[in-house]
């Protein structure tokens, strides 16, 4: 999506802003704060049958039923035991037709970053054939690299739906 933006300047402008950083394994990721509705500790999740393995189930968010996805499994990282630090980030994702809330399980939430356009670099080219549509870019913060995620692309409703039957 972003890769298709007409000019680099425009793209960079749009990417600057506040980000919520979190950890998955050894890597630091970040998503735009504006998309985050809520951060909560891990809680009991009701498993839903016939869904892909990374869809952990549904939780009750003040009366709303919200699906929860384990980002580790989604990104192909090994599954680990949930701990006190494990968090669910409830984010609003938008697809063509609607907006929906989705919970994302991450190892731990670290901080809120304010990124200037200058801090952000485009995703490096990993060679042909490697397409990473859900990467907004990379940010260098205190000599560490944070991967900026486009949360809409990470998990679209269509994807979950189309994968649904496979998990059965």
């Amino acid at each position: 999506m972003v890769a298709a933006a007409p000019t680099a300047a425009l793209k960079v402008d749009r990417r600057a802003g506040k980000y919520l950083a979190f950890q998955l394994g050894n890597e630091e990721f970040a998503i735009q704060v504006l998309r985050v509705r809520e951060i909560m500790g891990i809680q009991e999740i009701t498993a839903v049958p016939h869904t892909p393995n990374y869809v952990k189930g549904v939780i009750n968010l003040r009366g709303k039923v919200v699906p929860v996805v384990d980002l580790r499994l989604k990104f192909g990282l090994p599954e680990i035991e949930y701990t006190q630090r494990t968090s669910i980030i409830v984010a609003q994702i938008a697809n063509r037709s609607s907006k929906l809330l989705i919970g994302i399980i991450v190892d731990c939430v670290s901080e809120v970053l304010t990124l200037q356009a200058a801090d952000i670099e485009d995703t490096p080219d990993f060679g042909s054939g490697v397409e990473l549509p859900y990467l907004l870019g990379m940010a260098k913060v205190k000599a560490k690299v944070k991967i900026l995620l486009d949360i809409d692309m990470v998990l679209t409703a269509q994807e979950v739906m189309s994968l649904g039957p496979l998990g059965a």
Partner: protein
Amino acid sequence: MARRSDHKTMSVEEQPAVSANPLAGDPELLNDFILESREHLTSIELQLLTLDQDPGNAEAIHAIFRGFHTIKGMAGFLDLDAIREVSHEVETILDLARNGALEITGAVIDRILESKDYLNRCLTELELMLQTGQPPGATDQAGLIEGIRSLSTGGGEAAEVRGRVGPATEGLVRLARGVAATPGEPAADVAGVPAPGNPEAAKVMETKTDGARSIKVDTAKLDYLVDMVGEMVIAQSLVKHDPDLASGLRPRLARNLSQLARITDDVQRTAMSMRMIPVGQLFQKTGRLVRDLSRKYGKQVELDLEGEETELDRNIVEELADPLMHMVRNAIDHGIEMPEERVRAGKSATARVRLKAGHQAGHIVIQVSDDGRGLDQEQILRKALERNLVPPGAELTETEIFNLIFQPGFSTAEKVTDVSGRGVGMDVVRKQVQKLRGRVDASSVRGQGASFLMKLPLTLAIIDGLVVGVGQQRYIVPIFAVREMLKPSKDAISTVQGSHEMALVRGALAPVIRLYQRFNVKARFEKPWECLLIVSESGGRQFCLMVDELIGKQEVVIKSLGDTMQNIPGVAGGAILGDGRVGLILDLEGLIDANDRA
């Protein structure tokens, strides 16, 4: 009279031409017009049926006249020529009638009813135009009318309307006179008259007087309110049963909590009642059907309505219209005999179809019954055998035989008519009723009539559920789907071909579905005789759902799992359980269907 009508037409036509009228294309005005006109048409139909029973009822004629008049006025204002012209014609007829120059006959009423239907179609067309996003504007307005006209050319009446536009009034009056003069064959004469029956006027009068006491609310808002109130009730009960509170509850807190419970209860009832509408509106529609069908078949049928004031969730009423029509149609087509036959059987020539609504044990019960020939058990059984719906030599009880008519593809009509008899009737009825989480049963006494009983929940928003446990998971089984629950003995379980398990339930074998296998979760017990079997029925077949244990019973608000998880086989939705966790509501029919495929 003719002059008077002419004058009216003139005044309407003084409106600026289509393209010059800035109001004509306003979607909001059009929408209001559609809504209001619909209401008028409904009340016109009602009045017409009254008039049919009592042709001298001047009050009804006035009410109908007012209805058409209002629609005509509004249509003229919005440059909806087709509607205006049709309404105008009907108005002329009605004017003659109320001045005593025209006798109200069945044919006249037929014609007005037809016009009413025509207007209804015009409105539907209009609505479609608005929805398909045609930008409103002068040109589109013209296109709209063109669409309506072409719609009318499709049906006979429409063509008539078109042809008549020029010398309309004159022709109508002549026709009307003809009708008045030759009461013997009024139908042919009136046939030329496109009578647009618009019941709107009467409704308008009503809305005017009611205006101060009621407002129109978007149904989406109402649905949301009901949902939220459901949440509130659950949250309230969570607080009340909180273990921290329960220990050491002080009298003041207890008092306040029970006050809160009372208020939430009240709020819930009020919110629910806002969405309730009397079932009478639904019954009214059948009045028209009964009239049309009985004329068509030459049967004499009287419609008895009872409990019209019984209130039902609006969503249910909407979904119930088709099944009800089906059943009434079936009753008249199959159930009721010709008058001669009835007399021979020692019954009165006029048959009765009875619609009765009422409350029963927290449910709404709607009964459709007739005093016709009743259901023929032997014939049903024979058909079922022909169609392989029952195995040969099966011993069926009376109820089981009657329930065969709800099987897909079953039809006992000896010949296919355009009304019923294609065998798509009763199974559709049952599907629809089940969708509403209700059930329908048939009963009959040979020669004395048949009766269909629909049992429906009061509302769709909340269901009574059994909370069952499988391992760590909690599931909700809708109570309406549950026949019985049992802990089987060891010898009640048998295995067919080593894989398919069957349980013996009251002498009948029913397949066992192990929920933990289906949902791929860990169960505490894997031996059926340690588990609980929930006996349910889908599509006429019994089956048993194997779960670990029964945890309790709870009323739950049904929630969608969201766009992402809409079509999961066996899961109907989610609900917040008493402990705040989400429980999945099972769709038993989906489970057994999946079992068939497996």
